[in-house]
């Protein structure tokens, strides 16, 4: 051993001067599979697939095995019915009717909610005068108003749309109010230092800064609106998805009921995604950093 090697603690055997490094082995098929399983992009859809297979398969099996074809029709029957309803246009028509109701009420309610929320958030006077009502009426479920509204406006579109307006206004107003309160003080101070008048502060600072909160409120309101519309349609007929589901109940046609439920799920999911996209796209720029609200 050379003196240098001794002092550094390295023996001749460690330094790989004589034998060349072994060539890398080709991975076996099993190692390929294992690698793929670790990769999230493959793993997630795989588990989704397995999950759906297991549940749908189990459902199909159980429905036939336990002869629950009426009470709990198997996926095959449900799917068949769904397609049938799709083909004859019932689902599309029902969905369109329900959605339009929601949209009409939703747009009006959102506008009113935004104005109300921004007003309440900015003006102490308005808050003192109006806050008791907001905090009372927000706890009265919209459906409770259905009966009085029917009494006043009869069984018509107006009644249903009004209910949606009510549902939307409070969710949006409360979130808009929170948005105003959350505007950082330094933004307002900055604007005032540059000579902005209160109106300018409101339009140029408060309003844009509240946008992500307003979107969040609209997202919540959308969910609540679905609930209200479906219940209203079940109670007082009129061609929406709720009505469709109801007809299923009357004729004990569970496949129709399931089809309606599925359609509702799809609609709800899609509208929620739309809002989430809106929040992500426009929410990010409205704060100086990433805007992470809920999922």
């Amino acid at each position, binding site marked *: 051993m050379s003196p240098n090697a001794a002092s550094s603690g390295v023996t001749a055997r460690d330094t790989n001067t004589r034998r060349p490094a072994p060539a890398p082995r080709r991975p076996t098929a099993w190692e390929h599979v294992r690698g793929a399983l670790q990769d999230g992009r493959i793993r997630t859809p795989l588990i989704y697939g397995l999950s759906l297979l297991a549940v749908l398969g189990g459902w199909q099996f159980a429905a036939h095995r336990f002869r629950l074809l009426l009470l709990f029709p198997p996926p095959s029957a449900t799917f068949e019915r769904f397609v049938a309803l799709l083909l004859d246009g019932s689902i599309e028509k029902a969905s369109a009717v329900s959605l339009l109701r929601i949209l009409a009420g939703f747009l009006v309610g959102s506008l009113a909610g935004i104005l109300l929320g921004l007003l309440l958030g900015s003006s102490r006077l308005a808050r003192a005068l109006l806050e008791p009502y907001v905090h009372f009426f927000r706890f009265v479920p919209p459906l409770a108003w259905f009966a009085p509204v029917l009494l006043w406006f009869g069984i018509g579109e107006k009644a249903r749309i009004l209910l949606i307006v009510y549902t939307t206004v409070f969710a949006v107003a409360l979130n808009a109010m929170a948005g105003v309160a959350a505007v950082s003080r330094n933004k307002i101070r900055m604007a005032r230092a540059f000579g902005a008048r209160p109106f300018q502060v409101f339009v*140029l600072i408060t309003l844009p800064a509240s946008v992500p909160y307003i979107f969040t409120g609209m997202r919540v309101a959308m969910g609540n609106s679905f609930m209200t519309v479906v219940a209203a349609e079940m109670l007082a007929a009129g061609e929406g998805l709720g009505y469709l589901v109801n007809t299923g109940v009357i004729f004990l046609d569970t496949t129709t009921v399931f089809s309606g439920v599925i359609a509702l799920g799809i609609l709800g999911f899609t509208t929620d995604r739309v809002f989430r996209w809106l929040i992500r796209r426009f929410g990010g720029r409205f704060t100086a950093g990433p805007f992470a609200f809920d999922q």
Partner: protein
Amino acid sequence: MSAPYISFRDVCFTYNERAAEVLSNLNLELKRGEFFLLLGPSGCGKTTVLNLLAGFEQPTVGQIAVGGTPVTGPGPDRIVIFQGDDSLLGWLSTMENVEFGLMLAGMGRRERRARADRALKMVGLAGQDGKHPHELSGGMKQRVQIARALVCDADILLMDEPFAAVDAQTRAILQDELARIWMETQRTVLFITHDIAEAIILGDRIGVMRAGPRSGVKEIIANDLPRPRSRGDVAFANMYARIERAVSEEVQLTVQRETR
């Protein structure tokens, strides 16, 4: 003897009846065109001094005047550069943020754009005008604030620990750049910090505040080091030691009071 440009006369400040007085009989005078540093331990009220001059708060007793006129509220002659980035408007681009004050003042688009371009160039952000604040680093965001202040030709710049949230290397770079910009523009600056080295790099005069509550200015040390200043040389070290003596007493007091 000319009247001071900015003056604090017997200023007292307290937030409400129940809290202790933050500032007690504070007297301070700033000359026009000087770079004044306010140093002190945490809780000594230095941010309050800035807020009073900015007009965000009103003194309980006493008066603050600029050029003889008392300060009654915020105004475009005293622009503030805040700590952190939450005064930047995330929905506007860098250029639009810098132009914001000018837009409020009613300036035309072409002139605004020209001025903003110049300011961005001066702070070294020439190519970033299209980006949004959340795409910028901490140091870059502070430069945007500086550009925004420069663009308005305000006589007085108020800076509240602007580089505190930035990493040390970026901080040193920003300090040197700020010193350079100030030499070119010669505004009156009130700069708050707790970093002694920063004070020496930037300030003509350094005011050391007493430990709070009921704080005031303990002593003012003149900084005659020739610009541009470098952190390594002996004169810097001597000045550092001198200021440190004054400050550390107050820091000790603050720690004592906090742990009582």
